């Protein structure tokens, strides 16, 4: 019995892929790029992502639930699709692995500063591998439970209500930003992840709810991001926001409960769950592509090989800022893929359809 993904799973999966460590710097990125009330751009980004999902919806409708790879191979032939696969694999797997390394570096700013980051990374990769080999259905189940484990953290925002001040938000709209376009792109990478739903077509249970679910997941991300950014903008002054590397992390450390305080290490730890899903899904996507290139190889072995290779690659950037530069470029690449791939697929599908009609 092959289990299929239900719409709820897809929505949560999309949310969990999208949510990553970028949340922690998102308010700063927004403040730098758009200045006063930069948080207002977060809903705009959500909308852009939604439009992009619209493209995916068109692909889904045209493809009638066929796998993206099948479509590609049908028009480009198997060999023709290989270079494309290679690009996808490189971008996706590196993105997954840099997200992990980024997480490690941020964690190390708080605790374990002298431990070798690659050791941490190895631990994360092992856990990711464990999840990866269970297949996408079980990944979605784990995602669901991780979601339940982390969802309550939204309530932490209530702690900032007493120090929140509307006057600090100012009535200026998006004024005083620098490097708006580049910064905006950086901010947009926080929304990436929905494009992986392209690969989920064959695993979907119901035809109807799929796209709605992707939109719902994106909306959830958007709402939460907006809330986080909004609170951060009213809690910190703009100058402060741009000075903090990870404003959300400092916000976490401001929380004090009667029995425990400075919970940032623990709660940042909880973000491991969402980061893990991001990592696993990107690597899963590249394993899927890899599996297309080597259909006979066992996918677990491919996953292991892939993880080992990118583990090697991830030695290269050895400081937080280098990792961030890598992530930035990979993010740009991913933005191109997120928009380009669906457009490309739509073209192919239209051509295929015309051909079929011509034959008929």
């Amino acid at each position, binding site marked *: 019995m092959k289990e299929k993904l239900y719409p709820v799973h897809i929505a949560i999966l999309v949310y969990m892929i999208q949510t990553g460590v970028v949340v922690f710097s998102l308010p700063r990125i927004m403040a730098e790029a758009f200045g006063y009330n930069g948080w207002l751009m977060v809903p705009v980004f959500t909308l852009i992502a939604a439009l992009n999902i619209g493209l995916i919806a068109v692909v889904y409708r045209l493809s009638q639930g066929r796998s993206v790879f099948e479509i590609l191979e049908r028009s480009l032939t198997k060999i023709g699709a290989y270079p494309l696969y290679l690009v996808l694999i490189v971008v996706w797997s590196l993105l997954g692995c840099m997200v992990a390394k980024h997480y490690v570096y941020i964690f190390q700013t708080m605790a374990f500063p002298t431990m070798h980051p690659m050791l941490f990374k190895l631990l994360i990769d092992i856990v990711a591998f464990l999840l990866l080999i*269970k297949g996408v259905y079980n990944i979605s189940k784990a995602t669901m*439970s*991780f979601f339940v484990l982390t969802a309550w953290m939204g309530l932490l925002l209530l702690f900032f209500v007493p120090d929140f001040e509307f006057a600090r938000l100012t009535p200026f709209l998006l004024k005083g930003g620098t490097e708006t376009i580049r910064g905006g792109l950086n901010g947009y990478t926080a929304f990436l992840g929905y494009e992986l739903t392209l690969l989920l077509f064959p695993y979907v249970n119901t035809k109807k709810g799929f796209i709605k679910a992707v939109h719902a997941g994106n909306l959830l991300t958007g709402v939460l991001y907006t809330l986080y950014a909004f609170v951060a903008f009213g809690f910190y002054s703009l100058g402060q926001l741009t000075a903090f590397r990870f404003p959300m992390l400092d916000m976490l450390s401001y929380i004090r409960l009667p*029995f425990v305080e400075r919970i940032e*290490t623990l709660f940042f*730890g909880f973000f491991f769950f969402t980061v893990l899903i991001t990592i696993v899904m990107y690597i899963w996507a590249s394993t899927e592509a890899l599996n297309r290139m080597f259909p006979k190889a066992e996918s677990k072995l491919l996953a*292991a090989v892939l993880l080992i290779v990118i583990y090697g690659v991830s030695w290269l950037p050895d400081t937080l800022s280098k990792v961030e530069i890598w992530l930035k470029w990979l993010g740009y690449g991913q933005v191109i893929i997120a928009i380009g791939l669906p457009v490309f697929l739509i073209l192919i599908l239209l051509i295929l359809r015309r051909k079929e009609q011509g034959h008929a």
Partner: protein
Amino acid sequence: MSLLAKWLRPGKDNKNATHDAESIEQQALLEQYPTLKIMQDLFADCADLIHWSWPESQLDMLYFSHLAGNEEFAREISEPFRSIAPDEMEEVLSRSQYKPALDCRSASKGILDGNVCLFHKGSAYLVSVSLPETRSISQSETETSINGPHDGFVESVLINLSLIRRRIRSTRLKALKLQVGEVSKTDVYLLYIDGLANAENVQEMKKRIELVEIDVVHDGNMLVQLIDDHPNSVFPLFQTTERTDAIASKLAGGKIVVVMDGSPSAFSAPSSFFEFFASSDDYYQRWAIGTMTRMLRFIAFVITISFTALYVSVTTFHYEMIPEDLLITITQSRSRVPFPPLYEALLMEITIELLREAGARLPTKIGQTIGIVGGIVIGQAAVQAGLTSNILIIAVASSAIASFVIPSYVMSASIRLIRFGLLLMAGLLGNFGIVMAIAIIFIHLSGLTSLKSSYLTPVAPINLKDWLDIFIRAPFSWIQERPSQTRTPNKRKTRIKQ
């Protein structure tokens, strides 16, 4: 690489395809028509087998007297055959309780089940006189109830079946009789309610029980491990219970129940991880109280796995998490301890486990003494001697107590085991270690299935309606549907489709 892969993926055991329990010769022997001679050979050296012979009426009988009840024996054997003319024999033996035995296999099984095997003029008959000694029905020791029914299962499967039948008086309650154990030949009954249980589940369960390859099965908890989906997982995948009311409610929920002869533990399937935190007592309380108790158990779960781990993590790596008012207290209690927190915590955790095990293996009265000696004397002395801090004692004790709040003994033991994993990870990697351990646990849990349904239902796949009867105990009128995990063909509780 391949070596690593191989090492990571342990090879499948080469199962011995041949079963030596019964040699081929014996197989052939068992196919034969039973005669006194062959049967006596089969039971050679069984000193407790009784052979009665009435040469005047050409009647021989073999049976185990200790399996026979006096009354039954008198009714079926003594009275009909006491003063009987030889020509009346056939007539008596044609009564329905005397079943002709056609081969040695059924004849020998009959004798072992407590039948008398009668031999008359080359024909063999079996008549049941069985009344094995059993424990009287009493309250379960491991799952006590405060204001619910107090009857627990006993070791006799027939009594257990009668207990279940008394609770569910329906023709729809079906019982399939199966057998497990090459040597022990234990009777196993698979119960389900027709129309509520998923037929595929019934078939699957039946198949699994039939395919069990083992010589002897002693208990339901043992059988579970032979047939569940992931025998190597630390978590119990089917819920075992000794409570009759719990089993009745599982049956009504569309689950399959298996009862086994010789074991007071029946089990139901499929089960979800969260089901182990429910007790049938929850239903006998007002719903608000039931809900509170249930939530308390989930809090207990969190406390069990995290308290000691957090203590270790905070005192080893994250001192900044301690609030100001506690800082001095905790530092003071740690100041004389010569070990790092991890060793200190392991020492205490192991001590607690020792105490628990010692208490469980000893008679109740001595067990209590152990509790006092361990709890008060060791705890107090360890602190005074400066071996542990008293904050740790509080953490360890509360996590131990919390672990006993979980109603399922099997689950509580599993959770106590994984607690050590968390503890180690916390001692090595602090909060990150804890989170990582939780991630590993949940990855493991999400891969588990119970009778092919997700073990994490109703969280993943999510089903909010089920939450009403899993995380809280909603008023009965709210719980309209049977649990989705059973994939019951008849979801609504309030009516049964014809």
